[in-house]
């Protein structure tokens, strides 16, 4: 299988993210599937940012350490990545900034000066050089620039790109695959589109990495998507505003990370008690506390499973790539409304800010779910007792209905009660919804498996580690088992998927093995934990080396 890896590095503010996406665009144009890992510290100017772009003939969602081309805007981009450089690596560097470099040194300062182009166009010089090194035609390069650069800057970028193209030689040749060019999107963007597919009316958020870009994306596209996007004073305001929208009939989602979710937990418990639907996108990053704000982790599993005072049903899903982010975001929102429970979409920095080729035609959306609406007959009771625990919804403004939602223990009409019998009945009704949701989920692909059943070796993973695991498993002939739903826990599907699992490794981006702990709670053996907790996702080769110890 033909595959290529490119690393581009420089200081923050030099547009590494955009340059990385253009590189992904270059390979996409030739029919390749791409994945980009973006690594950046929490600062605005300076520091060291880099992106690893990997392109392959088939779907991928993880990076590898060795690269074919390294594009360095500064010395750090070479010095920090010695382990990525091997004999076959072509290094292209900015000769105006790099003192010690081997490969092609491009005098980028001089080039932009001579072309009377702004400094940001240095990215185009690098893109031009990469195209030439990879044997990609000038016309493909120009196409990509035409699509990504605003018209008024296009000419300058084209001139500078040509200078980069002319300054190097062809080292290898990337063959066009003839497949359709796929758009490259981030997990945040596709999560947003999935929510809209599920019926989103409004998105409410306070900025917090790694989900700020979901807020930015939906805010920019609010008119195109015909949704409302709101940024209130804090995360408490965020979730309460969403609950107000839901009470009045608008489907709302919120987005945050661990710290913001801490502030939302009282509102989450209110959503549980008042039976108000809300969908929470929880992008994980390493804690405790501020931790590593711009890096990745899978550390909030037990937090989201248990957050909020009291006992109430909730839906927790953990997509592992764009296709799953799309379908499960839509489903999380729809099921939240169908069962009037809060739903949580667990992502992390790797998925949320990683970029992937996205093929919407390959996505099979789950069944649409509609909320249960009041038929207008008889007296309206917001918490009417029903067989499946779900009470019909009506919204303020509906003639003949008085709609009372309540954070206190309440009766069927929604009035506060402290009577033991009513309290017990309404408590049972609420918990019944969790059972009904669980039964409904039995028809969904809640546990996915990859590879053959009789492998005798099994990798367990969740969320964004999915693709590193799928690739690494191939090397060992192992099977991969991935739970998509973590609450209500799909015990039956899990048991079925793990029949004949053999030797088991549980791969997670945390220090204590959170999925392993959940599996033990459910009475399952999680095998041996393979953990990484330095804020970075596993590179495929790194995971392979770690698994060699388990499967030896």
């Amino acid at each position, binding site marked *: 299988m033909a595959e290529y890896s490119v690393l581009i590095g420089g200081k923050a503010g030099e547009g590494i993210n955009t340059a990385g996406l253009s590189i992904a665009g270059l390979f996409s144009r030739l029919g390749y599937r791409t994945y980009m890992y973006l690594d950046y510290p929490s600062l605005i100017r300076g520091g060291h940012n880099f992106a690893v772009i990997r392109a392959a003939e088939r779907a991928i969602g993880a990076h590898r350490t060795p690269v074919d081309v390294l594009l360095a805007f500064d010395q750090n981009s070479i010095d920090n990545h010695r382990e990525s450089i091997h004999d076959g690596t072509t290094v292209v560097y900015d000769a105006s900034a790099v003192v010690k470099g081997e490969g092609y040194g491009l005098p980028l300062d001089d080039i932009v000066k001579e072309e009377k182009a702004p400094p940001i166009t240095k990215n185009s010089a690098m893109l031009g050089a990469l195209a030439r090194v990879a044997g990609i035609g000038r016309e493909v390069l120009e196409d990509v620039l035409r699509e990504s650069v605003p018209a008024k800057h296009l000419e300058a970028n084209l001139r500078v790109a040509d200078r980069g193209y002319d300054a190097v030689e062809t080292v290898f040749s990337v063959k066009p695959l003839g497949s359709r*060019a*796929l*758009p490259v*999107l981030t997990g945040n963007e596709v999560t947003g*589109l999935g929510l*809209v*597919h599920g*019926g*989103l*009316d*409004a998105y*409410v958020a306070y900025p917090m990495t790694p989900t700020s870009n979901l807020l930015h994306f939906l805010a920019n*596209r*609010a*008119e*195109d*998507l*015909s*949704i*409302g996007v*709101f940024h*209130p*004073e*804090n995360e*408490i*305001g*965020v979730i*309460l*505003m*969403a*609950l*107000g*929208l839901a*009470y*009045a*009939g*608008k489907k*709302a989602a919120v987005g945050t990370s661990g710290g913001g979710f801490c502030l939302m937990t*009282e*509102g989450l418990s*209110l959503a549980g008690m008042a039976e108000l639907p809300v969908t929470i996108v929880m992008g994980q990053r390493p804690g405790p506390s501020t931790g590593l704000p711009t890096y990745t982790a899978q550390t909030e599993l037990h937090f989201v499973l248990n957050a909020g005072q009291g006992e109430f049903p909730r839906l927790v899903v953990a997509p592992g790539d764009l296709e799953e982010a799309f379908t499960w975001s839509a489903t999380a929102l729809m099921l939240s409304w169908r069962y009037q429970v809060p739903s949580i979409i667990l992502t992390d920095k790797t998925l949320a800010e990683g970029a992937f080729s*996205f093929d*919407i035609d390959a996505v099979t959306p789950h069944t649409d779910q509609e909320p249960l609406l009041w038929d207008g007959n008889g007296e309206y009771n917001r918490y009417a007792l029903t067989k499946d625990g779900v009470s019909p919804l009506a*919204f*303020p*403004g*509906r*003639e*003949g*209905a*008085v*709609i*009372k*939602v*309540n*954070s*206190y223990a309440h009766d069927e009409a*929604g*009035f*506060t009660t402290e009577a033991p019998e009513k309290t017990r009945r309404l408590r049972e009704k609420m918990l019944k919804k969790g059972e009904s949701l669980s039964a409904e989920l039995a028809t969904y692909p809640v546990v996915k498996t990859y590879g053959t059943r009789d492998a005798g070796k099994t990798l367990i993973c969740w969320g964004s580690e999915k693709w590193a695991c799928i690739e690494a498993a191939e090397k060992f002939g192992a099977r991969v088992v991935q739970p998509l739903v973590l609450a209500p826990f799909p015990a039956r599907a899990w048991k079925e998927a793990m029949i004949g699992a053999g030797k088991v490794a549980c791969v997670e981006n945390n220090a204590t093995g959170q999925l392993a702990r959940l599996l033990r709670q459910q009475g399952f053996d999680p095998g041996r934990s393979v953990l990484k907790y330095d804020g970075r996702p596993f590179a495929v080769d790194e995971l392979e080396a770690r698994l060699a110890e388990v499967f030896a």
Partner: protein
Amino acid sequence: MNPKQPAGKTAGELITPVQNTWCPGCGNFSIEHMMKSAITELSEEEGIPLENFVLLGGIGCHGKLVDYLNVNSFYGIHGRSVPAATGIRLANPDVKVICHVGDGDIYAEGLDHLIFAAKRNSDITVVVHNNRVYGLTTGQYTPTSPTGFRGRSTPGGITEHPLNPLEVMLAAGATHIARGYTKKVQHLKGLFKEAIMHRGFSFVDVLQICATYFNLTDYYNKHAYEMNEGEVDTGRFESALAKIREWDYDREAPIALGTFYSVKKPIYEEHFQALTAGRPDRRELIRRILEERR
């Protein structure tokens, strides 16, 4: 529905069968009954269907009001009614959203939300049941308790000064600011009606007697007076500020009742209606975005 006979209910019928648990002599009774009358009268006079009113309650004695009135209600959590109210108003431009909040509830726990709702001129009404003491948690000081107040958590008396909530609201950008008193019920009802009909953020601080923990009846009866027409220029910030500063919730001074400030400004919720008007097929819109990105 015929607006002249709103949902076939008279004011009396707006009272729910829920047992009332306020202390005898509590100022909340006045607020409840004047709110009930205000809603009924507005329904009749302005043709607003009763189902288009939504009440919100925080946590505290004040919140029980929403259990006692047979009107749509969102009985939420301590200090957080205001952002939920904005959410409701965003979702439905036809509803009249009225937050009932307490002084501990909104001036302590939820002050950030109050300030921001005023700042963005959210088209909601906030009625503060300001008894200047925590009732339901049995007698601690609140942000509007006077200096020296001896509460159960501050037996030596507080050394800090109270907030003047009207001044805070004026500074934050509220477009309608009023103060009422639970012993002047007809006046109070008028303030409620005016505030509910104001397009934009309206705020009514109600000086409320707490019969059990902080009974200021004599003090208020001595100092409170209803402002006359023209006593304050409600369209002018400086005039309102001067009148608001006449009493600082601390030292003895005349306590003006009435509307201090009322101006028209664009409301926060206007933009949202344009975004969601017409309800197009959003799935088609997703396709379009993906095509652009190809």
